[in-house]
């Protein structure tokens, strides 16, 4: 793993853990805790991208909430799917990014459902729990309720993350984008721009 990859991956982990505050500031029904993972998948090789997902869950488990680590597999799956999507050009147009967001949402629902049902009994975030309870009261099983309730929330959250990834990738300088990163000699890359804390 190159030094620059380590720093970008670390930034992606930190973004995963800090961007959620914007959703709470705007009181939106999303978590946006996977933008860093999706971006890492778009900018870095597969292994660092998966490490970003796993690292986010572990670090969040220590810093934010101890119930994050059980969902580490979800973050890893998101990284793998987003990596595949980015290599097929899904984040080059807004509508393919939106469709890709739904694919990521479906993956996240399927991978996280066993953890939500078996470990948490179908109860996690307050909003999702309320939707799950409605489905349960309507006579659905716990599995059906969790799958449906999670998909409702994830179908808002993950496409939002994918659209933001598309917007960020459009605004990033060319030397940070995957195609340019693969070339060995970068012409426009910064050489030394010392920051105050570097």
């Amino acid at each position, binding site marked *: 793993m190159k030094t620059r990859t380590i720093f970008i991956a670390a930034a992606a982990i930190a973004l995963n853990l800090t961007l959620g505050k914007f959703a709470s500031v*705007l009181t939106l029904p999303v978590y946006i805790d996977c933008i860093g993972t999706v971006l890492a998948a778009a900018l870095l090789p597969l292994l660092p991208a998966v490490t970003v997902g796993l690292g986010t869950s572990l670090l969040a488990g220590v*810093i934010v909430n101890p119930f994050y680590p059980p969902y580490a597999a979800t973050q890893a799956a998101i990284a793998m799917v987003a990596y595949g999507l980015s290599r097929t050009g899904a984040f080059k147009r807004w509508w393919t990014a939106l469709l890709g967001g739904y694919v990521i949402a479906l993956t996240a629902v399927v991978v996280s459902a066993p953890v939500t049902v078996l470990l948490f009994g179908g109860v996690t975030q307050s909003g999702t729990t309320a939707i799950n309870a409605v489905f349960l009261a309507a006579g659905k099983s716990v599995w059906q309720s969790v799958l449906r309730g999670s998909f409702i929330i994830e179908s808002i959250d993950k496409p939002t993350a994918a659209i933001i990834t598309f917007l960020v990738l459009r605004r990033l300088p060319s030397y940070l984008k995957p195609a340019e990163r693969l070339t060995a000699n970068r012409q426009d890359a910064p050489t030394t721009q010392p920051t105050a804390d570097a």
Partner: protein
Amino acid sequence: MHNSDDKSCSIPAGAALIWTIGTMATGAAISGPRASAWLALLTCAAAAVLTNGVGVLATICRVTLPLAAGLLVVHGVVNPSFPSTVTWFGWFHLRESGLSYAVTLSGRLCIIAAGLLLWRYTKRTHVLAFFQSIGIPTRALCMLAIAGTSLSLFASRGRAVQLAQQARGLDLKATLLARFVALPRLVVPVVTASLIDAEHRGVLMEHRGFGRQGLVLPDRWTATAPATTVSKVLIALLPPIAAVAVRCLQ
């Protein structure tokens, strides 16, 4: 995972890992509300003793009680797959088996929370040194360490962007659709600036020789003794031992 020099609440990383694995195995093996409640109480008490204080108990309650309340309502009242034992007003059902299930799960969550919260009482440098000694790649550890130290920087950058956008007319109490549209105005500048900054730092560190001959942790990171073979074997054997012990006790 804190970085202070306060020795009073510093737990060795190896002990924290053994504790976490043991509690996870206990949580996985547990069944029945009575055993779950007792083991949760014992685990919380042990966590309080290990951390030399009751602060950990407050944190366990803060993260577990909302989930426990949700479980009690969802399975003890709402979930029709559990038979109703008491009915009030013709519509309010109390489900005894659902309540038992909720108590079992709540106890398990309490044990898991106690298992993971102990890491907040370890020293960051010792944790990194310990994980390096048991074979975790140094680059992955560096990634986590850099991410952990970047959090406050990113949070302050996010706050600055939020204030700037509010000064430009961003309304935090607009309609739901308007707030959704406003989200990229807050997130995109923070993400873009953070990634460019990370790239610059990476280039800078690369030019300084970081990682050229393999990553070597500074001396202050390797202050603790590396994991011994005995502790590695103990870590590996702990899950089945704890699981069998819990099953035998129930």
